[in-house]
């Protein structure tokens, strides 16, 4: 009987939640074949009456089972509420019927776990994760069938399998602007709440100390438990390397892209620039000068060289460039995460979250090729810097400086973030007086050489460079008006900008958790990541939608997300290994669904 309750309760909560969502008439903005459309989150399994009847009967069954075991007044109350749900159903008040069933589900879950200890939280979580995993797996099957079959409506053809998963995720989409903003504000919030400490010896202080102790021990022992899950690490890393490559290739297949349109917006600018430079240059030297006078010469030269080397036109070279850029980004992120976590599983997980999450989907929509390359080089540079600090060695520092200069040549924005983050870290370390002088010297050398390089490029040689671009953004794009209108701008950015690529709540939930973990487990390397986020805060608060989006694109949010998931997984590994495996599979399928949903709907 206990087992039946454990299985029925998650089914009751999930199905009644979906039905309440459906019957309330709530919509969300979905990109369907390139167009952002308001789509009602309606879910009908058979029809509204039968769906609600089944849910009400499940509620009644669980209530009766609990009343049979405990016979208390509270169980009898839930039986009465279930009966009321059936009455509403007969009156065709489906919404109220489903709402009562949902409330009963939540009440009985609390009752059975906390009050009666009838079922164990982890047993229930196992059933809940299995159910979510099933929905995610059905979604993936739906997208794969669509890719094999094609059609007009990606959500209903050939079977509407993917519809349920999409609506479930999009039901949380209204939280995304709040979660993303909270994440961006989190570093500032941590500074604000610092003076608020619980009274020593009080219950909150005790709980906080226990949490701190757990996180500190989990972070310092990350490698021990999870190293047993090496196979998972390999799966995540391999998938992160291969899936975006397949996605790029899929984007130009007749099933996904029947009109063979160029899906990535900025690619046109790369092609136009290179064609203009070719036409206006008399020789290779002049062409090189033209390219060097842009703010992203390395990327442009890369496209041009590939186009010449394999004798394809500039469009083909540009649209398939993510086939190279994405694995390179994955490897640099892996190297950085490995230097941070010293753990293969969580480093691979960070790569997978980036390869299938908002970073990649936004990059594919926008064609942010230079940003992709620039951020990869910035991450590698940061990884080398962390290595040089840990080893007190100049060699990795020199490599780090070289990589940062290459990042400057690839795209100005990631370089600006890197320099701002390192500068803020130095200021923080000086203010707190908690870092060795040699570490500060390393960081100061890094900043000084980079600024000198930018000064020579932009002020002496008069080329366009990162600080010039930063100055231009700050002076022309940032304004207090944007802060006054922050919410409409932010909601527009999340729902519509780059096809709503940033509208994926799980990333921000995990990242917020990661921020808490990195704050409690205090290391200089985590401080650099936090300062990276802080550097983006003025842009996020005072910028228009595309500046906000570019900020989200250029912060290492997936490392934070992986850090957040790491602590949950470590806890599960400690308590219930089965649950950690279920969580890992669910995460894999959840993110895979996100990428598949996006690329299928990217072209007209």
């Amino acid at each position: 009987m206990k087992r039946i309750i454990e299985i029925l309760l998650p089914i009751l909560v999930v199905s009644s939640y979906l039905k309440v969502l459906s019957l309330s008439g709530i919509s969300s903005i979905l990109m369907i074949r390139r167009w952002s459309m308001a789509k009602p989150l309606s879910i009908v399994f058979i029809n509204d009456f039968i769906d609600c009847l089944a849910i009400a009967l499940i509620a009644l069954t669980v209530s009766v089972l609990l009343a049979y075991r405990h016979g208390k007044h509270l169980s009898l109350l839930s039986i009465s509420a279930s009966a009321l749900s059936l009455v509403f159903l007969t009156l065709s008040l489906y919404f109220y019927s489903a709402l009562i069933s949902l409330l009963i589900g939540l009440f009985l879950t609390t009752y059975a776990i906390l009050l009666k200890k009838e079922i164990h939280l982890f047993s229930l979580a196992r059933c809940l994760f299995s159910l979510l995993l099933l929905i995610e797996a059905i979604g993936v099957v739906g997208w794969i069938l669509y890719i094999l079959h094609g059609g007009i409506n990606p959500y209903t053809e050939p079977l509407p399998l993917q519809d349920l998963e999409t609506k479930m995720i999009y039901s949380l989409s209204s939280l995304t602007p709040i979660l993303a903003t909270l994440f961006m504000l989190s570093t500032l919030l941590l500074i604000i709440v610092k003076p608020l400490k619980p009274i020593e010896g009080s219950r909150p202080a005790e709980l906080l100390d226990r949490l701190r102790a757990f996180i500190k021990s989990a972070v310092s022992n990350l490698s021990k438990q999870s190293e047993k899950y090496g196979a998972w690490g390999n799966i995540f890393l391999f998938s992160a390397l291969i899936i975006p490559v397949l996605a790029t290739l899929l984007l130009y297949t007749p099933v996904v892209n029947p009109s063979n349109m160029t899906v990535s917006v900025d690619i046109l600018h790369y092609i136009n620039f290179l064609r203009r430079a070719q036409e206006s240059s008399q020789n290779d030297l002049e062409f090189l000068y033209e390219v060097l006078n842009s703010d992203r010469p390395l990327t442009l030269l890369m496209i041009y060289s590939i186009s010449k080397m394999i004798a394809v036109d500039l469009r083909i070279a540009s649209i398939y460039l993510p086939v190279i850029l994405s694995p390179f980004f994955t490897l640099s992120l892996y190297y950085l995460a490995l230097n941070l976590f010293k753990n293969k599983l969580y480093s691979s997980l960070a790569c997978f979250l980036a390869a299938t999450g908002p970073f990649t989907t936004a990059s594919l929509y926008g064609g942010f090729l230079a940003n992709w390359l620039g951020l990869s080089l910035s991450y590698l540079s940061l990884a080398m810097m962390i290595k040089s600090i840990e080893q007190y060695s100049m060699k990795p520092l020199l490599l780090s400086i070289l990589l940062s200069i290459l990042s400057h040549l690839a795209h100005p924005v990631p370089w600006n973030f890197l320099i701002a983050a390192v500068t803020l870290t130095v200021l923080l370390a000086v203010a707190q007086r908690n870092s060795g002088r040699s570490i500060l010297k390393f960081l100061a050398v890094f900043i000084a050489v980079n600024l000198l390089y930018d000064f020579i490029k932009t002020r002496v040689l008069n080329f366009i460079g990162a600080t010039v671009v930063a100055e231009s953004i700050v002076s022309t794009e940032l304004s207090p008006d944007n802060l006054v209108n922050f919410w409409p701008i932010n909601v527009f950015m999340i729902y519509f900008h780059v096809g709503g690529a940033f509208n994926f709540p799980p990333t921000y939930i995990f990242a917020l958790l990661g921020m808490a973990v990195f704050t409690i487990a205090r290391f200089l390397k985590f401080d650099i990541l936090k300062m990276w986020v802080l550097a983006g805060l003025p842009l996020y608060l005072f910028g228009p939608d595309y500046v906000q989006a570019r900020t989200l694109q250029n912060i290492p949010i997936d490392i934070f997300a992986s850090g957040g998931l790491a602590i949950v997984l470590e806890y599960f590994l400690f308590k219930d290994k089965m649950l950690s495996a279920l969580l890992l599979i669910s995460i894999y399928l959840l993110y895979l669904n996100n990428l598949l949903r996006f690329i299928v709907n990217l072209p007209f």
Partner: protein
Amino acid sequence: MARLGFKQILSIMLVNLIALWLTYGYLVAANPLTIKDVPGRLSCRLLVDYPEMIVYGARFSISGRLICEDKIPPQLMVQALLICGDIHTLTVNATTIGDDGTFKVDLEASFPKPSTSKTQCGVTVHVISKTVSTGLIDKKTLTMMVPS
């Protein structure tokens, strides 16, 4: 007995302000219940007049009319997209629909000159509201002449 200092009071005030601001953001701007106010499929017909032929480098217009069963909904716009030739790049322009349902969108090919003297272009006209598609769409294939 612990006492609250200036720092603690300031901290509590700031945390509360940020919490209020986030709550306002959720309830007013990102509230899922407000999204359903965006119009779904309208009970309207879209009539579009296309030019017979278009010429690369020359501006042209697409005009038309939205005929609705009831009043023309406010804040509607028409967005026209032009996709031509082998490069498949987009040219987009938009205009507001008048109170009488009429509209006129000007377009001009702003992509690299095609290498052929004649190419096929796809024009798609969407009716949108607050940047959300209403589902009213009209499409036509036009021939574009490319002057030498």
